[in-house]
């Protein structure tokens, strides 16, 4: 599969503090790429340098064989869409207003929508099962509904790549699987490349085609779930004890946390 995103020796500093050290990797087109790693390992910075929100201090990041810095802000928004962990909106926009905002990079400065744009917004809402919420206020929705609206807005941008920063972090089990299934559907039905940060390594193992493990701004390991979800790698990355066996679903690794009171079992 051909690479859609390419990091070559990328470093990133913030306030003279090194966040990313010489990172190199590639993301294949149409894959589900998941970044895991402990807090402060540089996951969010990695997404921000990719999306042009922060500038890397050295190295090159390219999307579709073109360096990120050569994209205009608007052009980049038609290639990449971003879904944050939570998007607090203090102002009472309706759901349909928010979803339609996703069309902005395809419109003039005044955001004057054509019929096609409205149809794309409608389809995005049907796809994410938010069409029944269309006229509700965004600040009156539950966390799961809010996140689905956010994804609908991002889909509306018709990007090649969807970036998500822990989209399931504050959601219950049901919503977590629904969001992840939605991502898988985007990947298979629309050939979208999904790049996601996740703290849930079991979800990452179940859905990720390729997993990148970051720690202190370095890549600890990368590869398929079975390659990276090992006792050693996870212990190095998170500094905690886990058990890894096969999921009852077969072929996936299953990770079980081992609390301190059970450490004697491991020894």
């Amino acid at each position, binding site marked *: 599969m051909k690479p859609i995103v390419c990091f070559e020796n990328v470093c990133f500093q913030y306030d003279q503090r090194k966040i990313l050290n010489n990172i190199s990797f590639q993301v294949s087109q149409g894959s589900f790429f998941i970044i895991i790693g402990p807090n402060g390992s540089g996951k969010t910075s990695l997404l921000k340098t990719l999306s042009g*929100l922060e500038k890397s201090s050295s190295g090159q990041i390219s999307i579709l064989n073109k360096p990120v810095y050569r994209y205009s*802000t608007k052009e980049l*928004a038609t290639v990449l869409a971003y879904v944050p962990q939570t998007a607090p909106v*203090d102002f009472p926009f309706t759901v*349909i207003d928010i979803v339609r905002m996703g069309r*902005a990079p395809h419109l003039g400065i005044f*955001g004057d929508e054509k019929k096609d744009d409205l149809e794309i917004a409608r389809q995005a809402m049907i796809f994410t099962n938010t069409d029944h919420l269309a006229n509700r206020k965004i600040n009156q929705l539950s966390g799961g509904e809010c996140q689905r609206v956010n994804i609908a807005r991002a889909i509306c941008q018709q990007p090649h790549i969807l970036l998500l920063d822990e989209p399931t972090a504050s959601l219950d089990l049901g919503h977590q699987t629904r969001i992840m299934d939605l991502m898988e559907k985007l990947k298979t039905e629309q050939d979208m490349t999904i790049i996601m940060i996740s703290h849930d390594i079991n979800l990452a193992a179940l859905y990720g085609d390729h997993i990148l493990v970051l720690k202190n701004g370095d890549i600890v390991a990368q590869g398929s779930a079975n390659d990276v979800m090992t006792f050693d790698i996870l212990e190095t990355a998170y500094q905690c004890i886990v058990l890894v066996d096969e999921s009852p679903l077969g072929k996936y690794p299953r990770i079980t946390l081992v609390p301190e009171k059970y450490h004697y079992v491991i020894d």
Partner: protein
Amino acid sequence: MTKKYSIWLRIVIVVVITAVALLITSLMGISMGSSQTDFHSFFNAILGKDSTLLLIIWQIRFPRVLLAAFVGGTLSLGGLVFQALLRNPLAEPYILGISGGAAIGGIIGILLNLSRFPGVCATAFTGSMATLALVFVFSSGKTALAKDSLLLSGVILNSFCAAVIMFLVSIVQDSRLHSIIFWLMGDLSHTDLEHIGYISILLIPCFIFIFGMSHPMNLLLMGKDLAQSMGVRVKTVSLSLLIVTSFMISVTVSYCGLIGFVGLVMPHLLRMLLGSDHRILVPACIFGGGAYMVLCDLLARILPESGEMSVGVITAMIGAPLFIFLLKRPGT
């Protein structure tokens, strides 16, 4: 507001409604006043039967109504832009210290016995620009345009200015004190058509610019990062909006002093009625804010038995209850 219509049609509908409101309040404002207060004599004057009243209407009431419309529109629009830019519903046009700086400048102008126009206006404008520059310096560097550093610098500078104003007021003993107090309360009474001409040349381009930026402002409400990920050049857009809006507020404050409340309440009122789309809110604020100010100014002129009261008193006395009423309305 139904979503079936295209954005332009919705804008036209809102503009027509608010413009009609502005027209009606303006007609009331022109026909009523301390000398003749009924439509009958107004029409007589228009038809040429009462040349004294025609003179009053043309030279005094008409420019004043125009000024009120401009000031109301500018302050409401300023509040709207600052609320979006700072993503803070408590923001109002004076929040970045423009008012404090303008007031110090204005008071200095009055103390120097300068004429009201252009003297005091010029010193007030200089004062507001100086505070604005200071706010930018304070909040620039690593934290440039981070919403809180800008907000905090503005609030702190405003309180410093308030202390200086109190100091200046307390050392003045003579008749200039009265001019100062009146200036601080906001005053629409000293104007003529020539000044309105100057003001409109300065303000109308600002209105047009802000209207053009109304869709990026919608996206900005989603947060800086999200706005940028949807293609908005956040730094350019926020900085240009900040400068244009501050300029426009400085012009009105320098000309007619501090008129409070309208800039905080009108954007919220209109948002509650029309939703959060700035493409609709910007024109609604210009015309609706204008209409509200014309009405308040009319009440300020005709309510007192003799003389007139400060228009700021009326804007707050009507605005606050109206605001609470809309806030508590079921279904919002």
